């Protein structure tokens, strides 16, 4: 029996082995290799030399700190808008209106359409000569002539955020909608019987109960947005004059466009550190929410 017990103890790990090997091969090894490269002067040349922390010193003496700051502004603005609009959209989609299933389907396209196609569509919308936004602005007297949204630093920065929000909001809305639908109807009914109005019910019943979902989605969205590459690259390639260059764009330019693999790897390591911090917060919050749920179950 004891021998069998020993086998049984090993058995789950045996089953996990294929997944573990694959994960180590496609995640662990590249990560270790990236860290190793970040301490070298790897470039196009066939040989590479150990340079210690020179790459890190170089990036922090250059424009990288401002790139980090820009990335955080870009991410927090975009995620904030996605959560706010997504929550409002989920509330509307949860309302008892005729044809709401059709409306729920109609929310999906920004998320379903391949990102590159969606972003190309936006690049034409932002065009001053042919784009609808500039056209409507002129028709309603808001603009005196064609306005190129991607030609000016602030406008381009906002344009990339708007596009990211357009693509990312449906996911947030549907996730929060699912959370709202899991709230027992009798809680709302009880509040209604006690005279609570629509806004009060949202604030005191809906919002507290979906807060764990909002927290989860905020952190996941922050990770995805932090790493968002295609939207900025297709719209502006990081310009004008680096106004939309975030950490991931800067890393791509350094490592791939300029073939400075060592310096690029140092930037990539910085991204991994930031994302690890986000992930740490995410798991901490998950654990805390789970503990709270268990406590609440016990009290009940």
């Amino acid at each position: 029996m004891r021998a069998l017990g020993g086998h049984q103890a090993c058995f789950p790990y045996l089953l996990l082995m294929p997944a573990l090997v694959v994960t180590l091969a496609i995640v662990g090894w590249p990560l270790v290799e990236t860290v190793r490269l970040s301490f070298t002067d790897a470039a196009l040349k066939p040989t590479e030399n150990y340079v210690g922390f020179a790459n890190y010193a170089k990036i922090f003496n250059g424009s990288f700190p401002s790139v980090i700051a820009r990335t955080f502004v870009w991410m927090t603005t975009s995620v904030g808008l996605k959560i706010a609009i997504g929550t409002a959209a989920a509330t509307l989609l949860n309302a008892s209106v005729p044809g709401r299933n059709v409306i729920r389907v109609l929310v999906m396209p920004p998320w379903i359409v391949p990102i590159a196609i969606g972003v190309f569509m936006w690049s034409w919308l932002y065009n001053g000569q042919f784009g609808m936004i500039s056209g409507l602005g002129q028709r309603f007297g808001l603009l005196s002539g064609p306005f190129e949204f991607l030609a000016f630093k602030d406008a381009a920065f906002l344009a990339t955020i708007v596009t990211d929000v357009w693509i990312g909001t449906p996911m947030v809305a549907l996730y929060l909608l699912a959370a709202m639908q899991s709230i027992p109807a009798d809680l709302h009914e009880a509040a209604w019987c006690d005279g609570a109005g629509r806004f009060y019910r949202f604030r005191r019943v809906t919002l507290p109960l979906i807060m764990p979902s909002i927290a989860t989605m905020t952190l996941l969205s922050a990770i995805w947005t932090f790493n968002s590459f295609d939207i900025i690259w297709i719209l502006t390639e990081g310009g004008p004059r680096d106004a939309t260059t975030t950490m991931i764009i800067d890393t791509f330019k350094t490592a791939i466009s300029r073939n400075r693999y060592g310096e690029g790897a140092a930037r990539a390591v910085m991204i991994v550190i930031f994302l690890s911090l986000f992930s740490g917060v995410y798991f901490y919050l998950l654990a805390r929410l789970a503990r709270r749920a268990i406590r609440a179950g016990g009290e009940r």
Partner: protein
Amino acid sequence: MNFRQKQREETVKYLTTMTVLMALGVAFSFVQTTTTRAETATLHMIVCGDYEWGGEAAERHIGKWEAANPSYSVELEYVPWGQCQEKSKTLAAAGKPPALAYMGSRTLKQLAQNDLIVPIAMSDEEKASYAAPILATVTANGQVWGAPRAFSTKALFWNKDLFAAAGLDPETPPKTWDEMYTFASTVKEKTDADGFGLSAASFNNTMHQFMNYVYTNGGEVIDADGEIVFNSPNNVEALTFYGKMAEVSEPGPIAYDRDKLHPLFNEAKIAMMITGPWARAEITDVNWDVAPIPVGPRGRPSTLLITDSLAVFKGSGMEDAAGDLARFLTSPDNQFEFEKSAGLTPLRNVAGVADLRKEDPSWGAFLDAVETGGPEPFVTDYVALEDAIIEAVQGVLLGEVKPADAIAEAARRLEEVK
């Protein structure tokens, strides 16, 4: 047998099956590879773009070369323009280079310096078949590092109807920068269109566009001794004029790369633009003609000469065969056939070029400036070169920096990559 034993037995079966299947897969691919190797050697060639871009002629020529070299089979891989050169460089840096790849000639010096490509063994006769400025685009340290494959020059397109509507002579294009500004200003003032199409996007052809002004004003980036001479009065004047043209151009030129100007020209929203010969096929809706690029106060007729080349990568084990294929594909007759198929400016003045001029006189503006044209600057980090020049252009257009300061800063950055 209890449930746990049954479960374990099934799992062992599953793992065994997976292992056997994986082993079979590896064995099959090994057998297939060795079989192929025994028959012919596969020569991996990366080409930018797609079949539509001269592919018919190129593949026919490759077929002829394979027939003459039966021990080789060319594996042709088309890669989209945006990723093409990065892919070849990354493969080379990873130790798995393509045997032959289409590369912008501006990258050759960097690739050679990093020992990733080998020189093309070109005879004196072959070298003499190219105009000197064209050969200069692929020559560094006395060696030819690529076989020129695609070539372009630029010229000024103008819309005759818009000129007429503005009261200008529709048959007379501007010949100097001053005339170009005045004509553009007149069009902007007297019609609904903008006078000129200016590009300044964060894209490499912004650097190319600006170089046309550098060369038509007698400027340079690097001199014959390899020294950076970008910080010159000629280039400050060129950048000042580039900024001035924004006054009479479409709003927000930073949103436009060169090719995005073509729809504006085709919709008669701009009266003039500087671009390559391929635009002629795209402009179908307006009455246009084409002339040499107007000349700056310190310069002479010129244009930026851009070549892309076939580069032989080191380490494929078939460098000689790849070099032979490159020379075969770019031999005068094959090259001209490819150029006609792809709509490119002819690299050499072969017999067919005279016929081309007769058939389509608009070729004249693109061909006449070749002898006095200037090459793309040859540096060890061309992306850094592009970034430095594009930032200078954008800085001036956004009003953030004066032309003289922008040129000085760009020159300082270029010193690091010469």
